[in-house]
């Protein structure tokens, strides 16, 4: 089973510029398609709403965790918490982390979203990574994980 999504992308732009695109609330809003009420502050909740036409009533909310300049930006959220009538506070939250690294041509950005299942820390198996090989392969992964368990 999968508990995280991992992405990486090479950007032909300096780290400082990528950092700004991620953490300046107006720049973030441009590419993420959200209008935020104010700047991101570590330890504080960020609020706003979706800007896609027809969906402006949908709210955005995330708890900003870490802002380590030009290295790491992370927040927790309830993915797809878009129904105003639902209280999401008791539902599982995922953690989104953006990690930046300087490269000769610009910036390597790694994004992870984790916490899709609540496997205790330290037991969260590598083998549970997303793959496209279907259930048979997933079962093998689970078997391997269980076999390696101390």
């Amino acid at each position, binding site marked *: *089973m999968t508990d995280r999504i991992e992405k990486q*992308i090479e950007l032909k732009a300096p780290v400082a510029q990528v950092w700004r695109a991620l953490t300046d609330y107006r720049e973030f809003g441009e590419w993420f398609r959200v209008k935020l009420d104010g700047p991101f502050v570590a330890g504080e909740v960020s609020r706003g709403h979706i800007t896609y036409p027809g969906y402006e009533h949908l709210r955005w909310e995330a708890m900003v965790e870490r802002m380590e300049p030009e290295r790491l930006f992370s927040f927790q959220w309830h993915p797809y918490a878009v*129904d105003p009538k639902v209280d999401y506070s008791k539902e599982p939250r995922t953690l989104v982390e953006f990690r930046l690294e300087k490269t000769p041509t610009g910036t390597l950005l790694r*994004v992870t*979203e984790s916490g899709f299942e609540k496997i205790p820390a330290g037991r969260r198996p590598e083998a549970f990574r997303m793959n496209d090989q279907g259930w048979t392969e997933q079962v093998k992964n689970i078997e391997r994980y269980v076999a390696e368990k101390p």
Partner: protein
Amino acid sequence: MSQKSRKGGLAGWRGRAPAFAALGDATRLSLVVTLASGEPRSIAELTTGSRMTRQAITKHLRVLERVGMVRSERAGRESRFAFDPRPVEEMRAYLEMVSAEWDAALGRLKAFVEK
């Protein structure tokens, strides 16, 4: 990330969170592995070779049953438990959707910083 799939994802997450949580336990995970790779088993068979009591195994099976990963079938005097792959497939499909939305968002970020 298309707003259409964002909307569709709502139901997905709300419906699937219990299934994700059900696997967050080593015993249940190993029960799923056992059942997924073989025949339906009775509680007695599942308890054999485990350090857990019959009651504990039963409790874990009920959790898996509630999220639809395990079905029980009556066979004579005892119940046999069988694996049902559908919830796991749904979880996979859900994560693939979230994954695709990240691809789209990062594509927009790339266009934004490289313009």
